[in-house]
């Protein structure tokens, strides 16, 4: 974490020194930073006590859960950097700040995944969010980008305010900023105490805004469409994963005693999210916007797993598989969604924006390999085995069956048909329509790496998921709050 900050600041300094044609140095620096950070994470992991260790005056809990998410953020960031090099060239916006901001937002995410102190969590959230606001508006000469950034900033700041209000109420209830202590204080309270409920509701508004669940999703399609495509990819996986980490930390680690209160709300939100997003996605003609709605729909599926988790006894199969479902879903989603965005990014050429559905037409003739891999990503997003997406879906539906939510499970599978329909719309125009332009699409090396790595991961996780399931099983131990509370003394 610290090392990433150093790299980010370093890039800012180096950027001043390198001449215009050499800006790719920044990307290399950022990439090396991410790798170095992964190495350090690995080092921490190998010396980690099974229940995690506390740091930074007990505000940080590095446990397996946090390590898992750290790897996820770093993978997302690394692939996004690979995608960015060529894209920024085309946009002629090659500035070092881009990579610095990217790295800083990863630092924020890491705080969100590991923090157990609401102040640190909030700082992490804001660090990530502010970096992303700037990144969304990074194309200064593009009006869509500016509009998206402004919208995102205003709504994001507003939701952060509500979120902070909720957290402050929790502080008022418990007299501590530490989640473990808050959790203990709340379990002594009546869960239907109005102050507790208001605190919970406001906190949840903030969290649901960050994961872009209906009805707090309005910012997502605009921000996704306007942002530079490489950042859209990054936002849809890493930022989303961080928001999920935050949500799990607060709701499962801290506020578990309140789950009888928040689970019914999540049921409602998940149904609304799946319904709203899937219906909206059906009519989109812009691929970025379509994928934005699809990513909201995926949040709806993940919330289903959260419902299963929230309604089954702790440690029962439904609880564990729901938890695994969310973690695995985020993992496979990282690769398949980034892969899809990487292909869309490669369509951006000089003078061609390339994010309309029509721009995909006949992609097969122009770039056969990219088209074939895009098909793989789309099928994976639709949850067709043997692509990785199926594994995520498998766990979610399994956990629903285990917790007895047959109705929700049926609703979920019906909506997956909607998903298939709009993914096939992209596939159809890509494979079965005649191309508008005939020349072959030039694809840069970095892009090839990005598409190749994500495709490989999508296939490997799908065909041989065993090691990944084990990793998730390993990381499942969110350290139990009572235990952490004991460590605090």
């Amino acid at each position, binding site marked *: 974490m610290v090392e990433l900050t150093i790299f980010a600041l370093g890039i800012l300094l180096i950027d001043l020194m390198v001449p215009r044609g050499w800006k790719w140095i920044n990307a290399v620096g950022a990439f090396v930073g991410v790798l170095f950070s992964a190495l350090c994470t690995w080092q921490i992991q190998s010396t980690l006590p099974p229940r995690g260790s506390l740091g930074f005056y007990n505000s940080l809990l590095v446990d397996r859960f946090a390590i898992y998410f750290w790897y996820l953020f770093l993978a997302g960031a690394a692939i996004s950097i690979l995608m960015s090099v060529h894209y920024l060239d085309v946009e002629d916006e090659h500035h070092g700040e881009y990579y610095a901001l990217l790295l800083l937002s990863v630092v924020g995410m890491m705080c969100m995944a590991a923090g157990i102190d609401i102040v640190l969590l909030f700082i992490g959230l804001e660090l990530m969010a502010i970096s992303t606001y700037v990144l969304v508006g990074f194309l200064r000469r593009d009006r869509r980008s500016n509009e998206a950034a402004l919208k995102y900033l205003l709504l994001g700041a507003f939701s952060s305010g509500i979120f902070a209000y909720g957290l402050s109420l929790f502080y008022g209830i418990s007299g501590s900023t530490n989640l473990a202590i808050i959790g203990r204080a709340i379990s002594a309270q009546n869960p239907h105490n109005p102050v507790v409920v208001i605190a919970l509701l406001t906190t949840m508004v903030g969290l649901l805004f960050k994961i872009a669940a209906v009805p707090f999703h309005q910012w997502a399609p605009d921000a996704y469409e306007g942002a530079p495509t490489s950042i859209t990819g990054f936002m849809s996986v890493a930022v989303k994963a961080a928001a999920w980490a935050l949500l799990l930390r607060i709701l499962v680690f801290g506020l578990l005693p309140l789950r009888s209160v928040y689970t019914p709300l999540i049921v409602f939100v998940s149904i609304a999210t799946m319904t709203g997003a899937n219906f909206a996605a059906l009519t989109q003609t812009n691929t970025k916007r379509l994928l934005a709605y699809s990513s909201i729909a995926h949040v709806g599926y993940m919330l289903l797993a959260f419902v299963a988790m929230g309604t089954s006894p702790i440690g029962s199969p439904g609880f564990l598989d729901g938890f695994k479902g969310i973690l695995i879903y985020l993992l496979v989603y990282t690769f398949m969604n980034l892969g899809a965005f990487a292909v869309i990014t490669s369509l951006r050429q000089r003078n061609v924006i390339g994010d309309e559905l029509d721009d995909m037409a006949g992609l097969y003739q122009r770039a056969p390999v990219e088209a074939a891999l895009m098909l793989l990503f789309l099928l994976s997003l639709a949850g067709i*085995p*043997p692509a990785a997406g199926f594994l995520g879906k498998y766990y979610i539906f*399994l956990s629903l069956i285990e917790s007895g939510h047959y109705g929700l499970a049926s609703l979920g599978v019906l909506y997956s048909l909607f998903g298939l329909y709009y993914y096939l719309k992209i596939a*159809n125009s890509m494979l079965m329509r005649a191309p508008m332009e005939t020349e072959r699409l030039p694809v840069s090396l970095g892009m090839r790496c990005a598409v190749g790595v994500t495709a490989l991961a999508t296939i490997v996780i799908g065909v041989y998921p065993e090691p990944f399931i084990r990793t998730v099983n390993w990381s499942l131990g969110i350290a139990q709050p009572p235990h952490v509370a004991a460590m605090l003394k």
Partner: protein
Amino acid sequence: MQSHILSIILFTPLVGAFVLLFVPKENKDAIRWIANIFALGGFLISLPLVPMFWAQRFDVTPTHFKFLEGSANNWIPSIGAGYNLGIDGISFLLIMLTTLLGWISILSSWTAIEIRVKEYYVWFLVLQTGMLGVFMALDFFLFFVFWEAMLVPMYLLIGIWGGPRKLYAAIKFFLYTLLGSVLMLLGILFLYFHHHTVTGVYTFSIPELYKTAPLIPFHYAIWLFVAFFIGFAIKVPMFPFHTWLPDAHVEAPTAGSVILAGVLLKMGTYGFVRFSLPFFPAVVSHPKVQSWMIGISLVGIIYGALVSLMQKDMKKLVAYSSVSHLGFCTLGIFALNSMGLSGSVLQQINHGISTGALFLIVGILYERRHTREIVEYGGISNVMPIYATITMIMFLSSMGLPLLNGFVGEFTILQGAFTANWRWAAWAAPGVVLAAAYLLWLYQRVFFGTVTNPKNEKLHDLTPREILTFVPLIIMALWIGVYPKPFFQILEQPVNQIVQTIHNNANANVPVNAQVRPAPAPQAPVAVAAKASN
């Protein structure tokens, strides 16, 4: 020592697809040769299975499956899924049908496919592996992976090489079948979880699930049956779920139609035989459920035949005739006796042979004239005598003339239905008559008389390659028609097994008693009994 013959059969087409990836796409003839070699190779490799299986046809194995490969737990131990293959008589026949039809359809596309040749063969070979996997898998997870993965190549075959409305047909096909399979997925997960609550073990192994699934209380089992039923009924397709079929068939390229009718539809009936019957014996033998199933089968038979009579497009006619023929297959299955079941499986094979041939026949005319409208033709037997003869044989086989295969299958099914309830047989019998009507009328309009359309005067007769595609089908049609005994012998054991399961659990509106099951689960019989009695 495990035999690996199933894996070899399963992956030969996939290896072919992989090899094709490295052939430059301009080199069309090389691609065709390689694809044909692998398709023929896939068929030849499956031939040794015949004597091997024949030798073991009456052997009793603990799970009733033979040529077992892999174990229940060797693929994804964390969730209890394994790469576990095995076959019994039913899947054996369907596998042989698949390898044969796979080869024939690849051979038949030599001149039919001119654009994007490489991809075509790659996807076709992938499809072949997917279909074989469905019939071989003894693990539900593996089965589901094959079941869904196979949709993708079929969707592309229709969508890229199809007719004018290909996009619509391709998406419709994919969405319909996916709707069925996701509901089935929920059913599978329920069985999986139920197995865990009864025995404490997570496993997708089908032979293991056979032991616990009949214990599911009736009010759950009925919903599970419905989930599986929708999945399979869409695939078959049974009457109200059949609307995707004519679209898919009409738009698909010839070889795609052959495989679609010959093999893909059989997955639905296979699913009924392999899963619905032994998993939910109490539900299927419930009189109300059974009469509903029989009812929609009968409606399918009559409705499919009547709609066939009215068609102007030859391919659509054959497509609707499939609905009618598959109605016979489901009728045989839900008669729930060994006669009906073995007749049904045999009829599935017959339908693969006859209807596969019918689609080839239509495809040959289409390739020459690029139209399938019946009114465009007439007097074809004057210009294409060999073609007319072969067509006659296959038409007769399809309508169930004695000494050809269709007769044996339909007769056995009707016999089975008659034993169960004579009214069912009485209602199904007109289907046979109607089949003769629409096929003979079609034949008369297309082949008899004088050549009325000048465009048809110069049609050339079948090439040796085209004749070759029909030879194995005619041989099989004659063999099954004249001497079907070996086929019934192969089917005897698995069919009796299923009928036995149903009889043991019949009348089980009352809770199923653990003692009547042949092999109680080793773990915690007390828990089993307790679960069963609530």
